[in-house]
C-alpha cells in the first residue's frame, strides 16, 4: 500500500500576488481535483508544477499521473472521470491539438473533465506567444469553453467550470492568454476551501465504471441510437447556458464576484459596440473610458462563454446598436475571424447591423490602446466594412 500522505491544513486562503498560471492551479486545488494528468508545454507548465507541489506537500489529496503525451493526459483524465473522480489537466497549442481525438471522447462519453488551455499560437512557425487558434480549433468537440480576462477570473472559472460540467455531464475548458495572463502577476483573492466546498459538492455521477456492477461504456452504437445520443449532447449544451448563468450568480452570492456569460461594458446608448475576448478586453475598457470621456458613443461587450454560445444574450445586448466591431485574435483560414462569424450568425434574421471583423494580435503581437482606437476609428468612419476581413497592422 502506498504511504498515506499527511493531510496538511489545505490550501491557505487570502490575498496573494500570483500569475495566471498559479491562479489556475489554486482553482484546481480548491476544486479538489482528484486526478491530475498533464504533459508539460510552454506556457502551461507552471500550472501543473504547482499542482504537483501541492500533491507532494499533501496540501492536495490527488493522484498526479505523469504521462508521455497530451493524448495520454486526456486519456488518463477520461479514465479517472469514468470511475467518478474529478479530473484536471492543462495544456497549450500543439498539446491541445494532440488531445483532439480524446476531446471528442470526453464529450461523447459525457465526462466532466476540466482543462485549462493557455492560448498559444499554433506552429509552424514555432511561437510561444498568444492567439486563440488552438482552442477555437476545438470548437466542435462538444466542450464548454470559457475565455478569461484576469487571473482572478481564471481561478474562479476553474471552480465554476466544474460546477457546470458536472451538472450537464460535459467537459469544460477554460482559456487564458499566454504570458499576458499566464505569466503576469496580479493580486488574487484565494477563496476559503470551506466556501468552495459549499459551492462545489463532490462529484457523484449516475453512471460510472464500477467493478461491482460492470457495464460497457462507449461501445458500438447503431444508427438507430447514435443520432439520439448526439441530440442529447446538443440539448445538454443548451441546458448548460442556463446552468452556467445560475452557477455564476450563485458564485457571486457566495464569493462576491461574478462575470456573466457575456459582460456589457458602458453599452448604454452606444452607437458602436466593440466585441472582445481574453485580455484584449482589459485594454479595450481603457480605450472605451477615454473615448466616452471625449463624448464618443462607444461601448464594449466582453465574450466570456464561447461554447455553448450565448446567442440570446448577444442579441439582447447588441441589437439596436448601429455598428459592431469584433476583434479576433484568431483566424479561420478561408473565412475570417471566428468570434465575428459567431456573432454574425447570432444576429442573422434579427436586423443585422453592419459588423466589422478585425483580425489583430496573432502570434502574440501587441494589441495596444492605439490599435483599438484605430479599430474604433475605422468602424465609426465607415458605413459598412470595405472588406470581409480587416487586418490590423499587417506590414504591406
Amino acid at each position, binding site marked *: 500500500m502506498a504511504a498515506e500522505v499527511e493531510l496538511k491544513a489545505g490550501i491557505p486562503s487570502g490575498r496573494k500576488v500570483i500569475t495566471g498560471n498559479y491562479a489556475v492551479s489554486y482553482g484546481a486545488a480548491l476544486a479538489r481535483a482528484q486526478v491530475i494528468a498533464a504533459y508539460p508545454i510552454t506556457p502551461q507548465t507552471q500550472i501543473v508544477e504547482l499542482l504537483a507541489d501541492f500533491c507532494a506537500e499533501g496540501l492536495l489529496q490527488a493522484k498526479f499521473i505523469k504521462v508521455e503525451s497530451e493524448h495520454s493526459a486526456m486519456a488518463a483524465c477520461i479514465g479517472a472521470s469514468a470511475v467518478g473522480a474529478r479530473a484536471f489537466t492543462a495544456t497549450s497549442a500543439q498539446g491541445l491539438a494532440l488531445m483532439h481525438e480524446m476531446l471528442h471522447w470526453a464529450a461523447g462519453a459525457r465526462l466532466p473533465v476540466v482543462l485549462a488551455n493557455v492560448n498559444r499560437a499554433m506552429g509552424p512557425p514555432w511561437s510561444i506567444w498568444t492567439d486563440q487558434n488552438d482552442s477555437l480549433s476545438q470548437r466542435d468537440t462538444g466542450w464548454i469553453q470559457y475565455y478569461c480576462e484576469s487571473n482572478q477570473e481564471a481561478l474562479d472559472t476553474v471552480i465554476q467550470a466544474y460546477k457546470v460540467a458536472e451538472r450537464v455531464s460535459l467537459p469544460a475548458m477554460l482559456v487564458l492568454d499566454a504570458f499576458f495572463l499566464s505569466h503576469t502577476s496580479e493580486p488574487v483573492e484565494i477563496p476559503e476551501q470551506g466556501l468552495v466546498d459549499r459551492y462545489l459538492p463532490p462529484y457523484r455521477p449516475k453512471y460510472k465504471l464500477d467493478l461491482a456492477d460492470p457495464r*460497457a461504456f462507449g461501445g458500438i452504437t447503431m444508427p438507430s441510437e447514435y443520432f439520439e445520443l448526439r441530440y442529447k449532447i446538443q440539448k445538454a449544451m443548451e441546458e448548460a447556458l442556463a446552468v452556467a448563468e445560475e452557477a455564476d450568480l450563485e458564485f457571486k452570492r457566495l464569493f462576491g464576484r461574478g462575470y456573466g456569460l457575456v459582460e456589457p461594458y458602458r453599452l448604454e446608448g452606444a452607437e458602436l459596440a466593440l466585441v472582445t475576448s481574453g485580455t484584449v478586453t482589459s485594454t479595450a475598457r481603457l480605450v472605451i473610458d477615454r473615448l466616452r470621456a471625449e463624448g464618443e458613443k462607444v461601448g464594449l461587450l466582453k465574450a466570456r462563454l464561447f461554447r455553448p454560445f450565448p446567442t440570446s444574450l448577444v442579441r439582447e445586448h447588441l441589437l439596436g446598436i448601429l455598428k459592431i466591431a469584433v476583434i479576433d485574435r484568431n483566424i479561420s483560414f478561408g473565412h475570417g475571424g471566428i468570434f465575428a462569424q459567431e456573432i454574425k450568425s447570432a444576429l442573422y434574421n434579427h436586423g443585422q447591423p453592419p459588423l466589422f471583423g478585425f483580425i489583430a494580435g496573432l502570434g502574440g503581437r501587441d494589441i495596444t490602446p492605439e490599435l483599438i482606437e484605430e479599430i474604433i476609428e475605422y468602424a465609426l468612419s465607415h458605413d459598412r466594412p470595405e472588406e470581409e476581413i480587416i487586418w490590423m497592422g499587417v506590414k504591406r
Partner: protein
Amino acid sequence: MSTKEFAPDRPITFAAEREMPPMAVSLGTTLANKTGSWRYLRPVYDEKKPPCNHACPAGNDIRGFIALILKGRLAEARELLCETNPFPAITGRVCHHPCELECNRREFDEPLSIRALERLAGDKGYKALRAPHKRHEERIAVVGSGPAGLSCAYFLARRGYHVTILESEREPGGMLRWGIPEYRLPKGVLDRELALLKGMGIELKVGVRVGQDVRLEELDADAIFLAVGATKGLELDLPGLEAEGVLHGLEFLKRVNFGERVELGERVAIIGGGNTAMDAARVALRLGAKPIVIYRRTRAEMPAIPEEVEAALEEGIEFLFLAAPIEVLTTDGQLKGARFTRMELGPPDETGRRRPIPIKGSEFEMELDNLILAVGERPDLSFLPEGVELKEGRVNDPVLVRALKAPIFAGGDAATEAGTVVDAIASGRRVAEAIDRHLRGLPEPAKGEEPVLVPFARINLDYFEPRPRVQGRTLAVPERVTNFREVELGLSLEEGQLEAERCFSCGVCNQCDNCITYCPDVAISRHDDEYEVDYDYCKGCGICAQECPRWVISLVEEEK
C-alpha cells in the same frame, strides 16, 4: 437501477430519446459477455528458475533468501539457505560465487552482491538447530571434517541417521580451519557454524587418522563416506628442495593457522597461482616479509579466485608472471636463492590453458630467504588399498568392496576436480542423498526435465532503474597488513536491504500486482500471495505476461 433489474433476456429498445442514458452505456451487466471465448492464448502463472540459483553448485534459493532479507526476516533467510547449504556464514565469505557471474542484473548494471547478502543472512540470522529425530538405526561414518564431510553429516542427520565424523587433526573443519586464513574466515565464525552440528547430535572424533589410528576395515558403520580432501602438497622436481628455508604452502598455512609462530626472512618467493599461493603470500606479508608471487603463466590463467588476486595486489604484493624456478641455490644446506627461467605461452594443454614453455637462455637468479611451494594439492589416499581411485558417489572398486563390510562413498576434493568449498558442500549433500537411497533401497531419481532459466531478455526493464551495487566495506590496506583481522566487513541490514531491492526476482512472483493492474478485463484476482485468472473473462491479450517485470506468466496456446 440494480443489475438484476436490467439483466436482459431480450434486446433493450428505446422508443424515445428520453428513455436513453446520456452516453452509450450498457444497461445490463457486462458479466453476461464472456470475453474468455475470444482467447487463443492462455496466460498461466508459471514460475521459472533464476540463473543465479542454477549457477550455485549447492543450488541455493538465492532469489528466495534475498526476498526474505528485503523484508528484514534474516533468520528465515538463513533457514532457507540451510535447506541446501549448512554454512551460509562460511560460503558467504569464501565462496567463489559463480552465482554472481550468471546474475541477470550483470547485463543491466552490476550483479547482485549475492555472496555478501548470504553472509548477512548467515551471520545475523544465526539460530541454533534442534537435534532431528533419529528415526533410522543405521550408523554412518564420515572420514574427514572438511566442508564435504560436514555437509554430508548434516544432511544425513536431518534425515534421521546416526553420524560419526572421524578427523585426523585435533580440530574439525579441514581447509576451512587450516587452509583458509583468519583474515578471510575467522575461526570464531567457523566454530559457530560447527557448533550447530554438535547441536544436531552429530558425533565428532578428532585426532583419529583412518589408516593409522584405526583401519578403514575396522569402522563399525552401515555406510562410509570418504571426504579426506586434497591435503598433500604437490612437489616440484627441483634440485636443492630439501634446503632449510624451503616451505610447502599448505604446511606453512596450517602451522600459522594452528597458532605456531613461523619465522620468515625478508625476501619470500611463493611459487604458484592458486588460492594456496595467494593466501601464503598474504600471510607472509602479515608476518612481516616482502613476498613475491612467481607464476609460470599469466594473470588470466591463475586458478585463484579473482578477488583474492585483487586483494593481494591491493596489499602491495609483488607478482612475477611467466617465470618458473629451475634450481634452489643453497649454502651449507641453507636456502640462499633460486634460479628461474622465463616462460612463454604455447598451445593449450588438456586443461584448455596455454602451456608454458621455457625460453632458452632467459635464466636469472634471485636472492631469497624463503621459498614457498604452492603448486597444487592432491588427495592422500595411502590408507586405501593400492591402486584405488576415488570418484564421487558410490565407490565400486572391486578391491575395496572385498576389503570392506560397509558400502563406501566418496566426495569433496578427494573425489572431484572442482576444488571449492561450495562444490564440496554440494558433493556432501549429493552423497548424503545417495547413502539414504542405498540404505532405504530407493531407486535413483529419474532425471528431471531441464529447468527453464530466465534469460536477461525476458526481464521487462521498464520497471527497473540502474543503481550501483552495494559492496560491503573492507578494512583499509594499512589497517590489515600487520594483523589477521578480517578484511571484509560485511553488510549492515540497511545496506543489505538496499542491495536486495536490486534483485529482479527473475522468474519468481514477488506479488508486485502488476498483472492485476494491467489486465484490461479485470480478470485477475489475488488471494493472499496467489493469483488467479478468471478464464471466463480473460480474453488472452497477453498484457499481463508482457507487463510482468520478471517473466512469471507464460502464454500457452489454447487447444481449440
